[in-house]
């Protein structure tokens, strides 16, 4: 028994932690989808850009400044992407917006290649969250412990915001009916901007937690976690925040269990196999509602 725990505890902890990081990205996917019916393909790249912001800012500033500044800058980036690439297409067919999102994704990736020269950049060590800690028999980084707690706190705050504030009520209204929301005097563009701001902030926090587990960032380092977060959002039922969070934890933990049993090679394949199975048997995901196409 003792041996079993010693062997598997690190994987379980790792799974919970990476699940939390996926969750922070997945919330951005699911919220934007809930309001705009748009898969924001650029979201995973926003996550990666946040990694580079941290690298470059931390080179000249103390962590106490670079950390909040990274989050502020990534919020500004997410906000600007929406204003420049999606807002002008508000009345265009949905496919056009989706193509625009793919364009933004490649633009950000190529900018990262251009700026970094394609070289991996060493990710800074963040005091406290990078320090070691021993839980029972497993030695891990503090971030492993911080991530799930922070994720749950942030998501709980977000759910409160959505269910009990004026802007949250507006978000729920806009997600169902743009035109009637406008007739209430709601400024649709503001609500959409707020959604991107929240999504980007969470992706920024997720990015800091994720990359502090690694030594370096590359322009494609965020592609896989971004994709898995997207799968998590679909698995949980895209449009549903609790769904995205639960989906992300399930994927994170499952992946690591697969690694624990020695099938590391298949851990990524598992995520996508799960996606296929979900799409076949429950296309709306765990908590998704049947989507009525907006007329």
């Amino acid at each position, binding site marked *: 028994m003792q041996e079993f725990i010693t062997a598997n505890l690190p994987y379980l902890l790792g799974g919970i932690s990476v699940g939390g990081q996926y969750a922070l990205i997945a919330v951005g996917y699911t919220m934007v989808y809930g309001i705009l019916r748009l898969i924001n393909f650029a979201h995973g790249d926003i996550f990666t850009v946040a990694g580079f912001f941290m690298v470059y800012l931390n080179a000249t500033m103390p962590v106490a400044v670079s950390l909040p500044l990274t989050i502020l800058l990534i919020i500004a980036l997410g906000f600007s992407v929406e204003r420049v690439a999606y807002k002008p297409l508000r009345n265009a067919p949905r496919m056009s917006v989706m193509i625009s999102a793919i364009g933004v994704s490649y633009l950000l990736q190529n900018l990262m290649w251009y700026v970094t020269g394609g070289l991996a950049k060493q990710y800074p060590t963040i005091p406290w969250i990078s320090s070691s800690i021993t839980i029972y028999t497993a030695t891990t980084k503090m971030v492993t412990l911080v991530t799930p707690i922070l994720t749950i706190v942030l998501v709980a705050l977000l759910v409160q915001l959505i269910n009990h504030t004026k802007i949250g*009520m507006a978000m729920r*209204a806009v997600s169902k*009916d743009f035109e*009637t929301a406008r*007739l*209430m*005097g*709601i*400024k649709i563009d503001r609500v959409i901007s707020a959604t991107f701001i929240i999504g980007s902030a969470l992706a920024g926090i997720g990015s800091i937690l994720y990359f502090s587990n690694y030594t370096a960032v590359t322009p494609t380092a965020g592609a896989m976690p971004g994709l898995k977060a997207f799968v998590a959002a679909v698995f949980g039922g895209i449009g549903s925040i609790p769904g995205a969070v639960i989906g992300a934890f399930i994927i994170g933990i499952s992946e690591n269990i697969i690694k624990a049993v020695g099938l590391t090679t298949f851990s990524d394949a598992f995520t996508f196999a799960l996606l296929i199975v979900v799409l076949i048997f429950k296309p709306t995901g765990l908590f998704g509602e049947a989507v009525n196409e907006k007329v």
Partner: protein
Amino acid sequence: MLEVKGLKVNYGGIKALDGVSFKVEQGQIVTLIGANGAGKSTALRAISGLVPVQGGSVIFMGEDITGKDTQKIVEKGIAMVPEGRRVFPNLTVLENLKIGAYLRNDNDGILQSTQYVYDMFPRLKERLWQMAGTLSGGEQQMLAVGRALMARPKLMMMDEPSLGLAPLVVRDIFAIIRRVAQEGITVLLIEQNANAALRAAQYGYVLEVGHVVLEGTGEELLANPQVRDAYLGQGKKRH
């Protein structure tokens, strides 16, 4: 109170409104009647700023509001009860009322307004915590009217409030419309149920393919043979 002059709206190359003019006097119920596609809904949507206007003007309380943002128009005191009720099904009844007062910041006033809506529609008060999507059609229509009242409008525009409701409920809805008018709110009503609309209204306009073809008091239009023939289904039977 509201004066629409030569309003023109194109929808994808089709002239939905081709120079429509009408007036709504303060304190009255004014109705626009006409067949499907005559442009009645388009007129309301143009006044609300939901569709772009190609020509003409909309004057509300002496101010030109043509082509203004919907939010600005709501602020000026024009509320709309949209076609098909369009309550937010994922919000509770109470939240639907609160969202009607979205532009107001006077919490005490909002509380008074909710009280006022409860007095008007006791049925809604019993269902405050229910999701609006679970209400019956008639209750949803009450909620849509209540939601519009929450904005404390000077003019309430109603788009086909009786559509798809049982005859008994339709009677209730028209009682509500009269009640709203008694409260001093001017009503601009669009209806396919021309008979009931003209009975409730002081003044009416008949729209045909983007034009006003007839106007008169409710009684005059009810008595007009053309109107009876085309819209009231009471004309002489043709062989």
